[in-house]
């Protein structure tokens, strides 16, 4: 699928993209600004139509959909939220239900439910206007608005780009649990590799309108397709991979008498390997005791972690 401006092949915006997004997964589009990520999003909800090829939503080409119907079935969240400044928070969240002529009681109930879902107390926030909210709160309202009509698909264009790192991390965590409980298919645009690894089931790396690599985060970090991707994911990609693995997923050494490992950190199966490594390096023993509840399951060593890292890569 391709998209050109004015049919001039020299002004290709996105080119030769072929992707399939499995239902209920989060696909992250990752790339620098101008790489065609936002264009790709707009091709999905029919704000743009491809010059060549087609975009199929539920098996039907976007060119064949009524654009209004198509967009109302797709949640849309953009940077700075794009809230309507002349609407209250409640009116913003009620946008699609209002357009779809839901009755007042059902709309009000849904608005309350959505605000609670994104962690805003309806009694406190429902009647405020967007300008009376912080950046993080606005972004939450943006997500609530997109979710209100229970769309099976959500498009999110750098939704957390304009908030500070602490708020961003909290919003990301909330997004993850929301996405899992609601079972929606999400296409998420970002230029932040860490955000992509954290949120994506699969990551599509874009460069100058082309798809460079399409893979789950693990594979992307272990086997970058080329130098560009390797550079993009960063020289610390090994550490990033460790953050995706947990102690529970590693083959441990058998338990040793704990008295011989005095001062060794206690690790849980749910601890990620990056945190485990940090704890082990700062202790004198350089190993970790792994306990599942009260049960002592084994010992994690530095060489095990090293083996883990090497096994994923081709080199």
């Amino acid at each position, binding site marked *: 699928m391709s998209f050109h401006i004015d049919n001039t092949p020299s002004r290709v915006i996105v080119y030769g993209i072929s992707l399939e997004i499995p239902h209920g997964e989060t696909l992250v589009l990752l790339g620098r600004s101008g790489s065609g990520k936002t264009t790709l999003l707009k091709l999905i909800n029919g*704000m743009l139509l491809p010059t060549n090829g087609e975009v199929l939503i539920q098996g039907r080409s976007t060119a064949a959909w009524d654009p*209004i119907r198509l*967009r109302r079935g797709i949640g*849309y969240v953009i940077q700075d939220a*794009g809230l*309507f400044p*002349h609407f209250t928070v409640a009116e913003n969240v009620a946008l*699609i239900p209002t*357009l779809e002529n839901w009755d007042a009681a059902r709309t009000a109930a849904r608005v309350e439910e959505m605000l609670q879902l994104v962690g805003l107390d309806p009694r406190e926030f429902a009647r405020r206007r967007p300008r009376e909210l912080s950046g993080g709160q606005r972004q939450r309202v943006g997500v609530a608005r997109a979710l209100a009509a229970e769309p099976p698909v959500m*498009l999110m264009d750098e939704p957390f780009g304009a908030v500070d790192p602490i708020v961003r991390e909290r919003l990301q965590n909330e997004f993850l649990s929301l996405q899992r409980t609601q079972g929606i298919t999400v296409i998420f645009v970002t230029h932040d590799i860490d955000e992509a690894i954290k949120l994506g089931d699969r990551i599509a790396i874009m460069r100058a309108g082309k798809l460079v690599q399409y893979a789950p985060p693990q594979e992307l970090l272990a086997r970058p397709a080329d130098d560009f991707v390797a550079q993009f994911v960063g020289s610390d990609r090994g550490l990033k991979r460790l953050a995706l693995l947990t102690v529970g997923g590693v083959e441990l050494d058998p338990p040793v008498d704990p008295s011989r490992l005095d001062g060794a950190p206690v690790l849980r199966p749910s601890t990620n390997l990056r945190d485990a490594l940090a704890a082990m390096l700062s202790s004198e023993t350089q190993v970790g005791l792994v306990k599942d509840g009260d049960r002592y399951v084994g010992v994690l060593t530095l060489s095990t972690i090293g083996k883990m890292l090497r096994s994923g890569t081709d080199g």
Partner: protein
Amino acid sequence: MTAGEPLIRWDWIGTHLDEIAFRTGEHLELTVIAIVVGLVIASGLTFVGLRVPRLYPPISWFSGILYTIPSLALFSVLVPYTGLTLLTAEIGLVSYTLLILIRNIAAGIHSVPVEVRDAARGMGYTPRQILLRIELPLALGVIFAGIRVATITTIGLVTVTALIGQGGFGYFILLGIQLFFSTPLIIGALGSVALAVIADGALVLMQRTLTPWTRIG
């Protein structure tokens, strides 16, 4: 002025209260008609200009030309065709509102943030819904600023239409000049200024009621 005559003769005012009330109403009527008709024409022209961007420059240019024609010259050109009528007065008054109203309606619509328009489109608003529910309400502040300027200008200009037999307070000004009598002259001038101040205040109140989102609370 005649020597020895006081600047204001209060007894004249006392015996002319009915007429002052009548001229106030007339002044207001001429103004309201001009602003309402001006708004209708300006909205139409602006939306043509926004839909077909090629047409906006000539529309803006045309309204600019109208604005620069001296009012006295315009009325003397019109009188042979439309006579000493309300129509003649309104053609002039409406012409002078167009430039300000067209520019402010266009500026208001353009002031709507791109991400707001994008969000509306991406969520399935039809172009008509975007115009009526998003762009127009958000443009209202800037449009009102234009209406206020146009109203004040028009109230001042209405006095000139006394020359073609209309004119509200302009009638008193003309009377004062013809009779070398300062009282009606001052009443006419002050009346026109007072009306402008009151109208402006009323428009500010109206705008605040219509755009509650521009203030906290």
